[in-house]
């Protein structure tokens, strides 16, 4: 794939390269500081700067404070509508999740390539989205069993199920419940990966078309470039939507655990 399209490899953007600390390890596992780790830290720094701007705590908010408050209000409103007053305890987690995914997604879209720094989308990695999904799912499990004990299993038997259907329904519901962390993690990973590959492939068409001559510029590069503008806007939308979906599904799963339907 890479060889035919010149030097442009759409998968190269997902490569993890250690920056320093290649020798660091914990219990035999290498924990080198990679470009992925760097972009996580960039995300953290960006989020921190964004939040500090909202910490003026004025009675009449400025623009920045209003922006920060609209994000916190969005998440706490989502928790209130999906879970109710008890959801307030979990707002810090869902807010952290939402903001981390949103900013990591958007950081991966930043045109830092023009200054020689390859953008890296942290959330396009299965290990990252998987860990986030597992954390969400673990919280759901812990909260569910903590609050309801073995009564939590009644989640798998909806109200009004006929007696003879219970074994089958139980298995189906259990299966759909256990599949949640996978769907949660895979959805974000696949959405970010597919979008970024599409963007790189189209960018490759533009560059290779220009290299191949005037005719290919007209029939390949220009249409690809126009398409790319649209795809880029769509990707920015997907960045926000995927962060929202991840946070929304986490809050819905938490609602199952807290309120048992």
């Amino acid at each position, binding site marked *: 794939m890479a060889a035919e399209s010149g030097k442009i490899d759409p998968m190269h953007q997902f490569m*993890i390269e250690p920056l320093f600390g290649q020798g660091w390890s914990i219990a035999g596992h290498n924990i080198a500081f990679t470009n992925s780790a760097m972009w996580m*830290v960039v995300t953290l720094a960006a989020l*921190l700067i964004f939040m500090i701007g*909202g910490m003026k705590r004025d009675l009449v908010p400025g623009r920045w404070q209003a922006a920060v408050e609209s994000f916190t209000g969005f998440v706490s409103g989502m928790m209130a509508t999906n879970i109710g007053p008890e959801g307030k305890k979990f707002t*810090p987690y869902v807010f*952290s999740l939402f903001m981390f995914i949103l900013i990591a997604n958007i950081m991966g879209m930043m045109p830092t390539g023009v200054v020689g720094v390859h953008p890296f989308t942290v959330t396009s990695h299965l*290990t990252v989205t998987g860990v986030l999904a597992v*954390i969400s799912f673990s919280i759901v499990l812990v909260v569910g069993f903590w609050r309801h004990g073995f009564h939590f299993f009644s989640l798998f038997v909806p109200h009004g199920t006929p007696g003879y259907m219970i074994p089958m329904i139980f298995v189906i519901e259990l299966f759909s419940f256990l599949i949640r962390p996978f769907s949660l993690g895979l959805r974000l990973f696949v959405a970010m990966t597919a979008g970024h590959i599409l963007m790189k492939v189209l960018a490759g068409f533009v560059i290779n078309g220009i290299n191949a001559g005037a005719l290919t510029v007209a029939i390949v590069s220009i249409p690809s470039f126009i398409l790319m503008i649209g795809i880029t806007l769509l990707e920015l939308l997907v960045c926000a939507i995927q962060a929202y979906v991840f946070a929304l599904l986490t809050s819905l799963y938490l609602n199952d655990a807290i309120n048992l339907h």
Partner: protein
Amino acid sequence: MPQIAQIAATYASQIFWLLIVFGLIYFVIGKGMLPKIEATVDARDQKIASDLAAAEAARGAADETEAAYRARIEEARAAALKATQDAKSAATAEAEKRVKAADEALAAKAAEADAALKAAQAKALAEIENVAAEAAQEIVAKVSGIEVDKAAAEGAVKAALAA
């Protein structure tokens, strides 16, 4: 796909750094900053709600004051109207009384004058009778030489005047 191809070599580093970064985000931002921002928003909402309530109360008080003011104005107007009407009716009654008194005085004076007139008339009549009787006595005496007494002359004069 490097995400899969590199997973064995990089998963530990990925998970390690993700947990550190996400842990920082959760504890510093989620637990530390978010509640403060939410508290600010809540304080603002409460302030707005209490200000609105205060404004509502002030409006109620203003309405009450205005109603009281209107009632007092209404009262004062009614009192003024009553006072003028009283004064008017009192004046009318007074005028009527004085007109009546004046009427009575005039009537009394007229009656007095009438009586005086009548007395004068009666006196004049009596004097005419007297004069006539004396004249008749003298005429009779001159004409016939008969001395007619005064009573007879008077009776004849009365009979002639009555006729």
